[in-house]
Structure formats: C-alpha cells, structure tokens
C-alpha cells in the first residue's frame, strides 16, 4: 500500500478576479465532493485532505542571514496554485489514477498525482 498526493491546481477563478460560483452550482459542487469523500472514507482510501484559501493568503518562511524571515504571498508567483489536496492510500498508481479521475470528475479541475516516499517500517 502506498500513499499519493492528489493536488488540485486552480487558476485565479475565485476571489476578486474571477466569477464567483452561483449558489446552485456551489451546492452541486459541494454535494459531488461530499459524496466522493464519503466514498474515500468508507474504504480506507482517505488519509487527509482539504481545500485551501487562495494563494494570496500564503506566507513564506525562510532562513536568511542566520535568522528567520517571513514574506507575504506564495512561494512562486504563478497563475496557478494548489487549491486543495487529498492524501490517499492506494495499492498502486493505477488505483491512485482511478481516484484522481473521480476527483477530476467532481471538481472539474486538473489533478496532479504524486507518490509519497514509502514510510520506513510500514
């Protein structure tokens, strides 16, 4: 059993720049995501996941001149940022990709699938 990160990469569709989702569309979206997460949890696939606030709420922390400094904003300026993610258990890449396809179907955004290093002793 391996673990995979399924990250959702979204453009700036929410917030000031983008069109806000209509209430009915938002309702349908939440239902699709809710049903998918219930399915993931029912068979032990779900490890953790969630939706993130927009990238402009991010803070980068780094070591500089021997001290810790903070900067406002995301690590990389980009049109697309991680909008949310799931960490799932899956037997192999095919199983992870099948879940990714379900996530894509629910949220209508592309998903990047990346394997975690195997946990030692697991």
């Amino acid at each position: 059993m391996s673990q995979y990160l399924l990250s959702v990469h979204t453009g700036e569709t929410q917030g000031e720049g983008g069109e806000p989702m209509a209430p009915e569309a938002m309702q349908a979206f939440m239902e699709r995501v809710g049903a998918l997460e219930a399915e993931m949890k029912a068979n032990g696939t779900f490890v953790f996941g969630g939706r993130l606030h927009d990238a402009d709420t991010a803070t980068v922390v780094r070591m500089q001149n021997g001290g810790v400094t903070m900067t406002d904003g995301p690590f990389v300026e980009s049109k697309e940022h991680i909008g949310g993610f799931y960490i799932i258990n899956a037997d192999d890449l095919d199983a992870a990709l099948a879940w990714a396809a379900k996530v894509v179907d629910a949220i209508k955004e592309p998903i990047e699938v990346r394997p975690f290093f195997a946990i030692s002793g697991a």
Partner: protein
Amino acid sequence: MGHEDLTIVGAHPEATDVERVFREAYGAAVATLARVFGDISLAEDAVQEAFIVANDRWRRDGTPPNPAGWIVTTARNRAIDHLRRSARGQELQEQVGTFTAGADRWGEVAPVSDDQLRLIFTCCHPALKTENQVALTLRLLGGLSVDEVARSFLVTEPAMAKRLVRAKHKIKAAGIPYRVPQRAELPSRLRSVLSVVYLIYNTGADDPERASLRGDAIRLGRALVDLLPDEPEVAGLLALMLLSESRMPARNVDGALVLLRDQDRTKWDRTMIEGGHSIVRTCIRRGQPGPYQLQAAIQAVHCNADSYEATDWHQIVALYDHLFSVMPTPVVALNRAIAVGESAGPDEALTALDSVATELDNYHLMHAARGATLRRLGQREAALTAYQRAAQLAATEAERRFLKHQIEELSSLTWS
C-alpha cells in the same frame, strides 16, 4: 517468435548463440524476474550478468538444451545473491520470503507468457511519456542495448541511459503496476502499446539508418499476437507491418526512395505478403474492424495488384472511408485524397487535399502529394512550390533527396 524474424532485415547474420538467445529471450527473462522480485532494475542487472556468464560458459561447454530457461535460472540466482548482500534485500526477503525457497520452486522455469504481457503494459503505461514508453519497450522487451536504443533516438548513450533510469525510477516510485489491465481498461491501454510498436516500426521505415527497428517492431508485434491471440487489432498491426515490410526491398534502392507506382514488384517479399494476407482474411472473418486492421486491409489491396495501374483504387478509397469513420485524422484524410486521385482523377484529389491543407501545413507528405497532383494537372509552377515546401519540411535525408529529384525533373521539363 520464430527464427525467421532475425533475418527480416538481415541485421544479425552472424549472431552467435548467445546473441541470438539475447534477442529472443532477454525481454522474457527480464519480465519473469521483474515479476518475481518486483524490481525492473534488479531484474535487468541480473539478466545481463547471466548473459555475461553464458558468453563464457556456452562457448566452453556448448549451448544448454533450454537456453532461455538457463538464463532465467542463472539470473534468478544472481538476483538472490545481490539481495542477500544488500540491506534492502533483507527487507525484501522478509516481504517476499518465497524467492529463497530455492531452485525447486522455479527450477528451469520457462517464463510465463503473462510476464511479458505485464511488462509491456508497464513500459507503455500512459503515465509515462511516449518517448520513454518507446525507449523502455525497445530496451526491456526488444533486447536492444542502451547504445542501440540511443542510436535509434539519435541521442548519446549517457543521455539515453539517464532517460531510462528516470523512467524506471518513475515506474518504481510511482508504483506503476506489473499487471495486465482489466477487461474494461484493456482497449485503451492496448492502444498505447500498439502505437508504441507501430511508432518503432515507422521510425525504422522512415530512416534507412535505423532500419533494424523495423525487425524489432515486427518481433514485438509477433510476441503480442502470441500473448493476445484474441485481440483483432493486435493481429491487424502485425499484418500491417508485414505487408509494409514486404515492399521494403523495392522501396529503397541504393539509398533512394522509390514510390509505390515505380516499384519493381518482383522484389516484393511474397512470403511476407502471404503472411499478411492470411491475417487480414482472419480479421475480415472476425468482423471487428479497427484502425490497424483497416490499414492492413488497404496494404493488402496494394500487395494484391500486379501493377500500380491494376490496383483496385475504388476498394482502397472505400477502405479509407471506413478508416476515416473510426479514425478521423487529417493524415487519414490525406491518404484518402491520394487514393481519390487514382480512382477519380487529380481534380477531385486537389479538392480533397485542399480540405486538409491548413491542418497539415507543416507535414511534408501533404505538400509532396499536392506537388504530384498539381503536376498531373499541368500546373508546373504551383507543383514546384509545393515540392520545395515539402523538401524544406522533410524529416529524413532519403526523403529530401527524393523531393530534390522531383524538383529537378520538373524544372527541366518544358510544357509544349
């Protein structure tokens, strides 16, 4: 896989037993060990070591009665030695447990054909880049050395070695499974396998310098037919390759490209044509046509004709219509347009070509077809322009030479 495959392109006329077994058994041995140990790199290293041992021992003691089985057993023992010596091996041993059970369990085990099938689907997994799918397939299943794979991609050996290492790392890290896809996924996954094999064939067909790839692709095609005898498209691909291959001796004369209309048909390989025709007949009886079977059927009609003029062009256009209905690509439309030129005349062909001219503006064969059609219509200047554009875009030296020749011929003609 029969021995005749090795003589198709005459690439290995003086192969020793070890080299011959290498070509035929390398992929199967790697596939079996990858299944047993769950690790492609370990499997490859062990199989290579087994061949090094074989090179010494077979020369001294003679070739064993079951060379492929000997390789698998020796490689398996080597792999176990490696694992015992490494810390990771200790872990693996605990997990797998069974592989130390000894020779009794595997014995002179003949590789299971499913092993190779599993490995093909792993190598051609859609999560890998096409170029990496091709490289892995040639290396792991085709038994080509890293250097040979590098040369067929026109890159240096270290660059190819790095690419292969990365691809194998992704297979392992991302957990691409060794598994024959389930029934529901099989058609889409099989498409990717077949397109890899056909891409290998065409790379060899387009460039005389890489001609040996054609034999490699046909070998892989035959292996696939053995592994998946009930898949009509697998048979279709093999027939398509055999029928294309049958004409190769007439297509390339002294390094120059000879068009179908000018080929010496007595040079066509009759045995290969028979093989291709017989598969096409089986496909027709099955009645589940697909893109490869239809392309094979088109080639079969060409191979049936005693001369270019005697070709059943109406039949060919009908097959292209069918092909376009299942595979509506501009390249299919282009080939259909060329056939229309023969069945209905150059005016109709030009109309058909115009409909794909924008989409295929960067494809040399579209411009070459336009050149030939315009020439037939007596539009010399326009034909010249089209040929020149084709020559600029041509992918290989042989094609460029051919097109330059057309241009020279056309320039020297006077229309009276």
